């Protein structure tokens, strides 16, 4: 008996080859990606007792997290910090990325690939390197940042930004922006390249100068990419951990002012000098993060997919 798709190949042989090709990927992916995720969500509905067993707890963990002051205070603090983190990226990283992409996509530009390669370089480095390098640069001990600011007459602005509650999160956010600007830049740049040259020629013949051509012709056509960049920023920001941990450790000080949900999760799950590890609450925090991220993705899919029809070529 032949398979509907391949003549002369028995059904058994067909199935065997399918399994051969698909099994390794599906198994590893399900085991280490999907299953843990589902398990974590499951875990958040349980409470680990001191004797090691789990009892079903309903959504009690969630209510505790969101309303019980011992838990909710750090949680909401972390959540708001994530939001601030996200806003700073949206306000600084993406417009700069857009500007750089627009400049890089100009029809005539010398050193184009050099600029592109070099500006993308920070994204290649590990957070450890970046976190520490910037710590050194901003350190009052070494004084480089202070010296440079004084050089342009802004010396009065300098302070131990990383060590101050009011500026720690902002500083770390800007460093994160510094690291990741390359990504929106490259994505938007590629989208700009996809716009046919003739369209810009037509705009030139229609009397638009470079700026007008950018705002009225190019920008509308790259809205889908800008939407994509925004949702990627959202997912990355709410999932963030590395930089804060590298620069401030699990306690995300000073006084938890740089604490985000990622560091909160790490701290709660593994414990630290202040508290014991709590598996269930850790799982709960992780699930909350998942829910928040999924909400963001849903919003994106809903908003952008509707508009996507309008802008295809």
């Amino acid at each position, binding site marked *: 008996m032949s398979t509907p798709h391949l003549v002369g190949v028995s059904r058994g042989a067909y199935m065997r080859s399918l399994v051969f090709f698909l099994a390794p990927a599906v198994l590893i992916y399900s085991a280490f990606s999907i299953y843990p995720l589902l398990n974590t969500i499951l875990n958040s509905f349980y409470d680990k007792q001191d004797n090691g067993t789990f009892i079903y707890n309903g959504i009690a963990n969630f209510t505790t997290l969101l309303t019980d002051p011992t838990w909710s205070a750090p949680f909401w603090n972390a959540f708001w910090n994530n939001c601030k983190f996200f806003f700073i990226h949206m306000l600084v990283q993406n417009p700069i990325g857009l500007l750089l992409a627009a400049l890089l996509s100009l029809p005539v530009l010398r050193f184009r690939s050099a600029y592109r390669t070099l500006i993308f370089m920070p994204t290649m480095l590990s957070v450890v390197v970046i976190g520490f390098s910037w710590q050194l640069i901003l350190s009052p001990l070494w004084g480089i940042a202070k010296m440079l600011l004084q050089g342009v007459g802004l010396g009065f602005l300098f302070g131990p930004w990383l060590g101050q509650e009011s500026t720690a999160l902002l500083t770390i956010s800007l460093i994160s922006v510094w690291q990741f600007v390359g990504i929106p830049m490259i994505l938007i740049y590629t989208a700009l390249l996809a716009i*046919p040259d*003739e*369209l810009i*020629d*037509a*705009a*030139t*013949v*229609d*009397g*638009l100068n470079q700026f*007008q051509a950018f705002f*009225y*012709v190019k920008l*509308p*056509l790259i809205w889908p990419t800008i939407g994509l960049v925004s949702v990627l920023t959202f997912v990355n920001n709410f999932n963030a951990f590395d930089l804060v941990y590298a620069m401030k450790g699990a306690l995300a000080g000073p006084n938890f002012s740089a604490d985000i949900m990622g560091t909160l999760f790490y701290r709660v799950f593994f414990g630290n000098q202040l508290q014991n590890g709590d598996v269930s609450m850790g799982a709960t925090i992780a699930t909350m993060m998942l829910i928040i991220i999924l909400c963001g993705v849903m919003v994106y899919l809903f908003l952008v997919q509707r508009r996507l029809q*309008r*802008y*295809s*070529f």
Partner: protein
Amino acid sequence: MAEVRIEKLHKSYGQVDVLKDINLIVEDGSFVVLVGPSGCGKSTLLRSVAGLEPVTGGDISIDGRNVSDLAPAKREIAMVFQSYALYPHMNVENNMAFGLKFAKTPKAEIAARVAEASRILQLDALLKRRPKELSGGQRQRVAIGRAIVRKPKVFLFDEPLSNLDAALRVNTRVEIANLHKLLKATILYVTHDQVEAMTLADKIVVMNQGRIEQAGKPLELYYKPANLFVARFIGSPAMNILPAKISKDGKSVLVQGTKLPLGLKPQNGEMIQFGFRPEHSAFAKSGIPVTVNLIERLGEVGYAHCRTVDGLSVLVEIKGDPKLPVGTKAFVTPANQHMHIFDENGDRLNA
């Protein structure tokens, strides 16, 4: 409408010369077609007139005004692009009005011009649609409409029919010809298709490797090609070209062992290229000896592919259904008044 004058135009990219010493006049209200093989520089020349390409030397004047240093928008031209270049995020109406808005044309004027262009091109039903909802032919009309509303001094067309299928191409060609008559427009048109050139043009400009090979009326180029390149480019199927020896007194030519009479002045050289079109030759009792290889019958007209004794290919037009099986030995006589002689440089020798 206006006259376009191109003088000593020159363009090079570094060491490479893309346009060499172009001199051309596009008379007011005429339809001039730039034609030539890929890479000959016709699109570059068009874009230079538009102001989309900088030039290295020479002048371009439109309506008596030197526009060589002006931006495209200030040259009062309009361009129809090969891929139409319609703004995908705007509907048809806004596509046409877009440029006018930036020229700060009053709203009433914009509406009037769009309405008129729409009427001429029958776009009324399509005004609110977006480009991706239109067929190729409809998009083409919108692109032309966008050009019309600008009320330009010159229309520039860059291979507008290349992206259309064969049947649509014929229809649109006729529409463009009608448009020309209606608007009495000055048109500079680029194509690689010599049939389009022959049917649409008041004047054809054949280009090759950055130079103008010949410019003139279509039939002029057909009956009196100035050189080998034009002779082979214009006319389909292409002219037969055979090496030959011309007599010192210019009265006869020796082609493939056969002597044919000529009426030229006394000559300096001896080796020439001898040309005649398939439609200007016939099988006869005497002439160039050939062997018939293949007959292509296209209905009433057909072509006999033959080979000379030296193995060179010769095409002869045949009418009806003559008995010419493969391998027949025959003689081909070119018509007396339609023989072309080209010297060793490829230039035409005239009587």
